[in-house]
């Protein structure tokens, strides 16, 4: 897994590539919670190159979202590939997160 962080008009963009699992999610957690502790908003996470996610990855985003809700921040997830989207759906998180540009019919298979 690799993470790139960019700035665009005050918006933080986190681009993730590769597998998110219990080995790599601690790095993701550090980056994401670093921004959350600084009360950044909005934070956009680009999932375009994510090849895999397990429950530790999902838990990391739930933690980030909860942290941001405390200060009214916005977390946007974009470009989630179908295989990964399917896990969000299974976890009933497709309505909890603000998800853009992913085929939601993956949830209704």
């Amino acid at each position, binding site marked *: 897994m690799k993470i790139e962080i960019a700035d665009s008009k005050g918006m933080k963009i986190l681009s993730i590539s590769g*597998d998110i*699992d*219990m*080995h790599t999610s601690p790095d993701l957690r550090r980056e994401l919670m670093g921004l959350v502790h600084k009360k950044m908003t909005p934070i956009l996470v680009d999932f375009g190159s994510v090849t*895999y996610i*397990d*429950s*530790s990855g*999902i*838990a*990391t985003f*739930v*933690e980030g979202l*909860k942290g941001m809700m405390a200060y009214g921040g916005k977390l946007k997830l974009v470009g989630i590939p179908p*295989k990964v989207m*399917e*896990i969000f759906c*299974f*976890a*009933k*998180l497709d309505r*909890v997160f603000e998800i853009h540009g992913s085929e939601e019919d993956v949830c209704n*298979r």
Partner: protein
Amino acid sequence: MGGMKDSAVIAVPSNPKYLSLIRAVTATMGEIYGMAGPVIEDVKLAVDEACSNVMKYAYRGDTSKRIIIRFVLKKGFEVIIEDNGIKAQPELIEGRSLSDVRPGGLGIHLIKRAFDVFAFDEKKKRGNRLRLIRHRGESDEDRDSRQ
């Protein structure tokens, strides 16, 4: 394979960096078994979750121990995961309700949607032996394992 059953065994350190290896082996065993692509994804994730739990709960993060995973391809797709860590209390293992949004508690659900059998072997003295079995469907493709 003649009389011998189709099986493969892998032993890896209890270090999360070996989860990618566990996934690669699971996926390839799924291919050899003839599973459809989406089923392979479910099974791969389930075995990853089960082994992550061994690392977290049986070994409490100690990365110097071993996990042994045996795959047996018979009528069903069977995965047996062994450790020498703290004994699990199967009656306490349960996923939390998915409508309760907080981190954690998703792994067991992901394991149980991919496998029909999730059972700890009572006979093992030290450590744990978790047996996962996915029965072969009419066609694994047709099977709708999603909730």
